[in-house]
């Protein structure tokens, strides 16, 4: 047994050497050895082959089902006005039919509930976890899948864990050290350096390939950056390309340690839970931060919760009342390489991170949109909607008006009142002369 020990030590040293010199240092400098892009290209080729194979398998075995990406019913899509009022008809029994049909349709399939679970893929990407409907198709496919499991769990996963651990400890140590310096431009520069390098290491720890578009629109100091929210990893993705002031609740445990050390070197905004309830206190703190024009741009996710990256839900207007310039950002993950959505009711943070680290990779597109400000005669809610539409349009996501809070709460009655009002106006519009003769 004794001679195994030096071997183990030797292997470990070689391992650390590879990790540090070939991955970590280039990452810190923002360079890339190109290994990841080659890996992604190979992966794309393999997945294309697998898709073709599965399609061929489907044609041979008609019992293998096809997933339906747009829901399980086909909607005729008539609006209330079209269905109800053909050339001046009055209220009739059949008007109720429109609502009944709509109601049953929403029971069978609705736009909102599906946003809170992971997107179903059109074809299998050789990960067990996305295997909803796919059955045994061929031997070669299974072999490739098995190989994939080995590569992901045996080779990539330890690598990624090592990198993440190094990255996070570097963040804690680095920011604490920088925190000892007096306030000066050197301190600011050093703190930005520490933050960026650490996030780059963490990004490598997830095998993340990020494509930034329109980098000239990057958020400037004194601005507010808003983005759609899919996962906590969004923060790592965005912070790879610039330094932001984070906003969030104070946590305990590991997160708390990170938060406390981060705030030593650079003014992030962490709220106590009690403060969060007081909206004015929150808004005031954010306003003060924005008003000091030389502070880092604030990063806010106005949806308030994680959505599954197929759509953008209502942006809460609180973030848009602070004032200042809004820099919208659209983030779109490529679902072929791994499902980035954090379903917080299904997975806790640790199991989520483990799933992330055993996916193929994370490929992201980030679009920086031109800055927007609130216009004359627009209130915060309308401004929020305008920004949301811009983000959805750029990212190729569906623009929904529903509130992400519906994940956990119920719909307000006022929405039902809207529908009733609409119907009432259709009826009164036609039967004006009739109703006046009836109310005698």
């Amino acid at each position, binding site marked *: 047994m004794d001679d195994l020990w030096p071997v183990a030590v030797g292997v470990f040293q070689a391992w650390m050497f590879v990790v540090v010199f070939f991955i970590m240092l280039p990452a810190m400098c923002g360079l890339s050895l190109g290994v990841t892009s080659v890996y992604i290209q190979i992966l794309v080729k393999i997945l294309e082959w697998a898709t*073709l194979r599965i*399609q*061929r398998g489907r044609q*041979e*075995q008609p*019992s293998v*089902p*096809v997933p*339906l990406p747009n829901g*399980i*019913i*086909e*909607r*005729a899509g008539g609006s209330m006005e079209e269905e109800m009022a053909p050339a001046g008809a009055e*209220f*009739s*029994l*059949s*008007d*109720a*039919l*429109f*609502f*009944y*049909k*709509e*109601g*049953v*349709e*929403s*029971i*069978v*399939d*609705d736009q*909102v*509930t599906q946003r809170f*679970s992971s997107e179903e893929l*059109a074809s299998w990407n050789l990960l067990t976890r996305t295997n909803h409907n796919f*059955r045994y198709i061929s031997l070669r496919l299974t072999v490739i899948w098995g190989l994939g499991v080995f590569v992901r769990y045996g080779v990539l996963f330890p690598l990624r864990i090592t990198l993440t651990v190094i990255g996070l400890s570097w963040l804690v140590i680095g920011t604490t050290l920088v925190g000892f310096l007096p306030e000066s431009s050197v301190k600011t520069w050093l703190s930005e350096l520490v933050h960026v390098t650490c996030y780059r290491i963490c990004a490598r720890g997830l095998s993340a390939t990020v494509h930034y578009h329109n980098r000239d629109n990057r958020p400037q100091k004194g601005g507010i950056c808003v983005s759609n929210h899919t996962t906590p990893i969004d923060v790592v993705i965005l912070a790879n390309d610039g330094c932001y002031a984070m906003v969030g609740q104070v946590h305990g445990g590991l997160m708390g340690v990170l938060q406390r050390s981060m705030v030593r070197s650079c003014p992030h905004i962490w709220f106590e839970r009690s403060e969060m309830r007081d909206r004015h206190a929150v808004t005031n703190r954010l306003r003060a931060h924005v008003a000091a024009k030389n502070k880092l741009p604030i990063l806010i996710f106005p949806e308030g919760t994680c959505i599954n990256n197929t759509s953008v839900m209502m942006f809460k207007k609180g973030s848009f009342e602070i004032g200042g310039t809004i820099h919208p950002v659209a983030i779109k993950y490529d679902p072929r390489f791994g499902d980035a959505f954090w379903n917080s009711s299904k997975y806790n943070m640790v199991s989520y991170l483990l799933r992330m680290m055993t996916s193929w990779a994370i490929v992201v597109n980030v679009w920086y949109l031109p800055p927007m400000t609130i216009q004359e005669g627009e209130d915060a809610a309308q401004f929020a909607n305008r920004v949301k539409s811009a983000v959805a349009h750029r990212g190729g996501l569906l623009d929904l008006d*529903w509130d992400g809070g*519906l994940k956990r709460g*119920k*719909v307000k*009655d006022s*929405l*039902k*009142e*809207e*529908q*009733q*009002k609409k*119907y*009432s106006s259709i*009826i*009164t519009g036609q*039967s004006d002369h*009739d*109703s006046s003769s*009836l*109310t005698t």
Partner: protein
Amino acid sequence: MGASHTRTEPNEFQDLMDKTGFSVEQIKNLRKRFLQLSGNEETISRENLDSIPALANNPLKKEIINAIFDKRNQHESEVGSFQEIGFEQFLMVMSHFRPPTLKTTPEEKEALRKEKLRFLFNMHDTDNDGTITLDEYRKVVEDLLSKSGAIEPATAKGIADAAMLEVASTNVPHMAPDEFYEGITFEHFEQILKGLEMETRMHIRFLDVGTATMRCGRSTS
């Protein structure tokens, strides 16, 4: 054809297919939806349906949910309503919304239409006495119209009364002035909605795999 690796189709679905007329794939899709709505339980309660956002928008939500839990819509002779329903009952209710296929004979079409009308009738006739009384009808109208003041309550009542009067005059043309019109019976109901295209107004196109297979441009043969 050919590959002997097909999994045997579960025979449990065969039974449901015969009863409801859905295809295997439609049943599987609806099963997934059922589990999603019920939170992976075996039954759905009214609270589960209450939490669908798009349904909460609908002014007739109460009537619709009651119809789902109504025992009369299960093609059996029981009355009353369930507290919770299982998957089979869910399918039975949904089967009322199936469109006729190309293979449906005219007699079957007529039967389907009658079924749909019966479903609608049951939705209005809440006390199950076989007639839709003025009160029951008024209830539906009230639910449809806004309480916020776009229409005054008197107007709403007027609309319901006028519609009821029209039904009475069409169906009982020689009613004496002091005769009381009890309510719309099922036959009258059928009569009123005779001209209505049930096939388009009351059906939902459940997608079937056969019609929506995804074929990419490249042929693989």
